[in-house]
C-alpha cells in the first residue's frame, strides 16, 4: 500500500472516479405523460400522413428517403402526392395510391401484416396501429385521382 497519504488519496480517487461517474450517469427510464389519454375516451387524432407519419415510419437513408430510396419510392422529399397518386409500384404490381379503391392501394396493402407482395412495412420500426392504418386509408381516399398511370 502506498505509504504517502497524499499518494494514497490520489490513487483512491483514480479508482473511485469511475464509480462516481456511474452514479452521475446512471439513467432512469422514461415516464408516461398523461396516461389517461391512452384509456378509452382519450381520443385519437390522425397525424398528418405526409409530414408526420411518412417521416416517422418510412423515412431514413436505407428506407424511403434520399437519392436511392427503397423500391425507388421517396416518401419524404417534396412532391410525395404527385409521386404516389395513380402511379404504379416499381417492385410490386399495383397502384401506389388509388383514391378510388384505397384498400387496394399498394401503399396501404404494404402496411398490412401480410401484403400480397414483399415484406410488410415498415421494416425495423413499429407497425402502424389500427388507428394509424385507418388514417392512411382515409388520406388515400381524400386524394384527387389524376385519371391516369405511368403508362402512356
Amino acid at each position, binding site marked *: 500500500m502506498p505509504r504517502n497519504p497524499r499518494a494514497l488519496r490520489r490513487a483512491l480517487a483514480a*479508482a473511485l472516479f469511475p464509480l462516481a461517474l456511474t452514479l452521475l450517469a446512471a439513467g432512469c427510464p422514461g415516464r408516461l405523460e398523461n396516461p389517461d389519454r391512452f384509456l378509452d375516451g382519450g381520443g385519437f387524432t390522425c397525424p398528418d400522413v405526409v409530414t408526420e407519419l411518412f417521416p416517422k415510419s418510412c423515412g431514413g437513408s436505407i428506407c424511403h428517403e434520399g437519392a436511392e430510396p427503397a423500391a425507388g419510392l421517396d416518401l419524404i422529399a417534396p412532391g410525395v402526392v404527385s409521386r404516389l397518386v395513380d402511379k404504379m409500384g416499381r417492385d410490386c404490381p399495383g397502384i401506389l395510391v388509388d383514391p378510388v379503391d384505397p384498400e387496394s392501394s399498394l401503399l396501404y396493402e404494404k402496411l398490412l401484416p401480410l401484403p400480397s407482395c414483399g415484406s410488410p412495412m415498415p421494416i425495423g420500426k413499429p407497425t402502424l396501429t389500427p388507428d394509424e392504418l385507418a388514417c392512411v386509408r382515409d388520406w388515400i381516399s381524400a386524394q384527387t385521382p389524376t385519371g391516369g398511370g405511368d403508362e402512356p
Partner: protein
Amino acid sequence: MEVAARWFVYSDPLKIATNLRPYDTVGVPMLSLGGELQPLRWTGVPVLADVGITGAYTFAPSLTSSVTEGRDIQTSWDRGDVGLRVPIRLGRGARAPVVAPRVGYGWLDFSFQETGPLAAEIPTAGYRLVRVGLDGRIRLAGPIALVAAFEYLEPLSGGAVYERFRDATIGGIDVDLGVAFAFAKGAELSLSFGYTRFFSTFVPVPGDAYVAGGALDQFGGVKLGIDYAP
C-alpha cells in the same frame, strides 16, 4: 464463472395493459472466457507496449424461464465483447495505480424459445453496443489489488422488446468492482461484482398496441475468475 441475475421492468406501463410482462431471474450460473493480447509488446515503448486487444464471451449453459401459468420456456443468455484498452501507469514502480481507457463493441442476447402469442409479451433483448470507458487497479496490501471499471454503453439496437414500442431510445452503463489476489507469478484470483443497466424511453401515442413510458433492464453478477499472464 459467474452467478448472475436479470431484472426487467417497464416504467409507467399502462395499467390496463396485459402485454407488458416484467421478468426476473436470479442465481443463474454462467461460464466466461476472456483474454487480452498485447501485440505491440515487442516495441518496448511506454504505454504503446501495454496496448491490449481484449475479448470475452460469457454464456448461461442451462436456463429456463417460467410464466405465471407454470410453463417452462427454454431461455438463452450470452454476451461478449471485443475492445481496445490502453493501460496508463499513474506513477513509478509496480505498485503504482493503473488506469486504462477502453473502447469496444459488445453484444448481449437474452432470448426465449417461444413462438406462441407469449413471444410478443416477454422481453427478448438483443443489444448491440459501442462501449467506452475506463478500468483501473490499485494495489491495496501485499498481493491484493482493488479493481474497478466503468463503461458507458451506446446501444446500436436493443432487439425485439424495443421494436414493439414507438421511438424507443436506449442508453446503458456497465460497472465492475472487485478485488484480485496474486497467488503465483502471473496468476491472480479475482472476485468482483458486475452491474449492467439499460434504461430506455418510449414515446407511445394513443392507439399503440404497447404503451409504457420506458423500461429498465438490469443485469448483475458475482464473478469469480482466474487470470493468468505468461
